[in-house]
């Protein structure tokens, strides 16, 4: 789910997000169009059917790099890496918890306001990324990804859902 300033309604994408270990991540979009993004270290490759692959360097997308670092640190349990990049605050309990990550780097702050991660137990439920320009994206993971959503959910509705509230 992405809320982008230039669009009148959120973009809703369905697909799979897979951590391949280390700095490798794969993001497959299945609907409404097909797209595969592979991230290896700093290198991002976007492949769409019938088009030549597009490559770019994460050095140019610091907010994405911050998100990935956080994601990687969470999945690999690397608390040191997480705390080196973000100031971390935790709320909730083991059943429904939220990590609020705020970037430490001033340059990163100019692009990324913060990341919040919701989970219950060992499972991740939601990743929320707030860009400094006001754009917001939610990534609903696991069981939440298949839950029924309204055609155009509002950010507030999604936040409630992530926090463990009922589906809107």
């Amino acid at each position, binding site marked *: 789910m992405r809320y982008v300033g230039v*669009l009148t309604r959120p*973009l809703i994408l369905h697909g799979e997000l897979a951590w391949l270990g280390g700095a490798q991540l794969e993001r497959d979009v299945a609907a409404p*169009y097909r797209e595969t993004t592979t991230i290896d270290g700093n290198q991002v490759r976007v492949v769409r059917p019938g088009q030549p692959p597009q490559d770019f*360097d994460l050095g140019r997308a610091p907010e994405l790099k911050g998100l990935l670092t956080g994601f990687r640190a969470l999945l690999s349990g690397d608390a040191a890496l997480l705390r080196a990049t973000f100031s971390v605050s935790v709320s909730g309990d083991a059943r429904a918890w939220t990590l609020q990550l705020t970037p430490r780097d001033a340059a990163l702050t100019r692009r990324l306001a913060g990341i919040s991660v919701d989970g219950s137990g060992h499972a991740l439920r939601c990743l929320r990324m707030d860009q400094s320009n006001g754009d917001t994206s939610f990534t609903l993971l696991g069981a939440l990804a298949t839950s029924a959503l309204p055609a155009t959910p509002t950010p507030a509705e999604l936040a409630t859902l992530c926090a463990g509230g009922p589906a809107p």
Partner: protein
Amino acid sequence: MLLALWLATLAALGWAVAMHLRVETDLRAFLPPPRTPVQRLLLDQIGKGPGSRLLLLAIRGAPAADLARLSQGLAAALMRDPQFVLVANGGEDLLSRLDPALLPYRYLLTPRFDAQPLDAATLHAALEQRLADLGSPAAALLEPLLPSDPTLETLALARRWAPPQAPALHGGVWFSSQGAALLVAQTRAPGFDPAAQATALAALRARFAALPDRGAARLEVSGPGYFSVVVDQTVRRSVDRIGALTTIGFVLLLLAAYRSVPSLLLGALPVATGALAGLTALVLAYGGAHGITLAFGFTLLGVAQEYPIRVLSHRSPAVSAVTSVRALWPLLRTAIVSTAIAYGAFYASGVPGLQQLAVFAVAGVLAAGLATRWLLPPLLPVRVRDAADTPGLAWLAARLDALPRPRWLPALLLLAALAAIALAPGPFWQNDLGALTPVPPALLARDAALRQALGAPDVRYQLLLQAPGADAVLTLSEHLAPALRGLEQRGVLAAAELPSRYLPSLAVQRARQARLPDRAALTADLAVAERGLPYRPGLFAPFVADVERARALPPLTPAAFERTPLGARLASMLVTQGGQWYGLGALVDVRDPQALAHWADAQGGGVRLLDLKATSEQWVAAYRARILKALAASAFLLVLAVTLALRGPRRAWHVLAPMTLATLLALATLRATGIALTLFHLVALILAAGLGLHYALFFERDSDDAAERRRTLHATLVCVAAALLVFGSLAVSDVPVLRAIGLTVALGVGYHFALSLLMAPHRHAAGAGR
């Protein structure tokens, strides 16, 4: 008093020269002067062409991820360095930006709307793609571009201008199949200016050394600029080493020959005077000199050391130095004048570097000769040891006198030499300048491998487009592009990069302008295209305004384009020479040059395949003809001068015959050993002939005085030993040019000495002269 004055003058001259002498290093000064516009262009290209300014870089010796990071870091650092015009490492990716100065022109530069117009359907497809972009990880980067550039024309153009044939990408940067990160960097400095290239290379290495976390990674550099630095350093090192060795040898030789330190020191003054006079002449005539001129010049000037040696050897205790020099002077004068004539031949060559060499050597020889005649004698010590009494010399003289001198020997040698010259297999001339390169084969092999891995333009072949104006060249270039793509598909070549790749002709730009929709049409098309897509209304107003602006812009001219950062690339491909404009197409991996040349010739003039190697070989051959003519003229002058000096052809024959025969023998030996001759062999043969002429001149002066004849032998032996010392050490140098010269001169000196000794008039039976 005289000595003090002399030294003071030398010091003053030395200071003045040091203040004003500019040492040039551009190797092109040793290329023949261009005759035709194409040759001029070629000369320009050899030095300043994009191919010759391209450095190929490889980073290896670390894990791939580190290499990729270092490649990015180095590319970023070099892009900020004004010494580099262009840096590429494959990192010009999706988000490469167009230069802001070109932004308004994007709809005139892009060919994407030539086939399908910028209409509602095109826009709709683009807007759908942009929606996917907004959902992709690149969203934050692309979002700011959308309002003014929904088709992402800026990115498309940047991609279009990326190098035509790129290596495989790993981690976003180019990698070779051997796992090295690859980059190319174009220097601002000309490729064949070693000093400027050395500065650029030093900056490059410093930038690399400043990168963080380099680990075991190392940077390898190749390309013409790097080679010119390697050659320069190799030659310099070699010359320095030889210079030091021969100086020590020379001092020991003279000490052994004359056993007098004052004689040694004073004997060095005439050549020092000659050197300073030569440098002064260079400063006055050219304001500076080429480094190679100086290196060769000092070698040529070494001949002048013979004058003080003659003076020192011919001293006898009975007469003062002034008197003995007076007796020696007619011969010395002939020697000096003939050397000056021989060296003067270089001036007629027309090659700037050789002309400087002639000015230096002739001025130096004359000054050294005059100094030997007028300044040296009054300063020499009054009491001397007679060189004629050198132990063993009398015995040697008797042995040499006793040598058989069959009258048929010269004729036989002449026949053998001519036969060897005529019949030896192998080419007579070496036209391939590359054969003389002192670049180690391993470096050349590495260069070839890197060039292939990078798909870097061929250094040998270029496509030359000719037209009356810059825009006409662009039109021609556009006209040729589809056919060249066909040739690429047929495998004739891997890729071609024409000037129109960067800038379309004015006509094409105007046609694109005419096809752009006007404001009303575009607004309507956009409304259709946005239907069903969630873009905020009015979002694309900047785009509509930009298209409207592009419709009214004056088309982008080459001059305007060249003011942008990308302009350097176009400037190197679009040059004017002699009122004509030329476009230079870079070609990658030309596999069938004949087919390409054939195609170019069939284009009805204006297009040709430029083969730098073939053209330079023809050029070298044509210019050698000119040098040979100059040599023939100087040989004629030499015969005339010697005949006049010796008052008649009979005595002149005794001098010229051994010299000519020895030169032929040296030539025959080179031929028989399979050495193809270069310009440098010619220079060396002339140098040896100059030395041989001196030997013959002095041996010809037959004297009834056995002691005087022993002095002549002594002087000649010292001269021969000195020459063999200098040129023998050149002959074992690792620089092909120096080796060619050293070997040829050492060989020549041996022949000249033997023949001038054996063919000198010999009225005295063995032992009778004593």
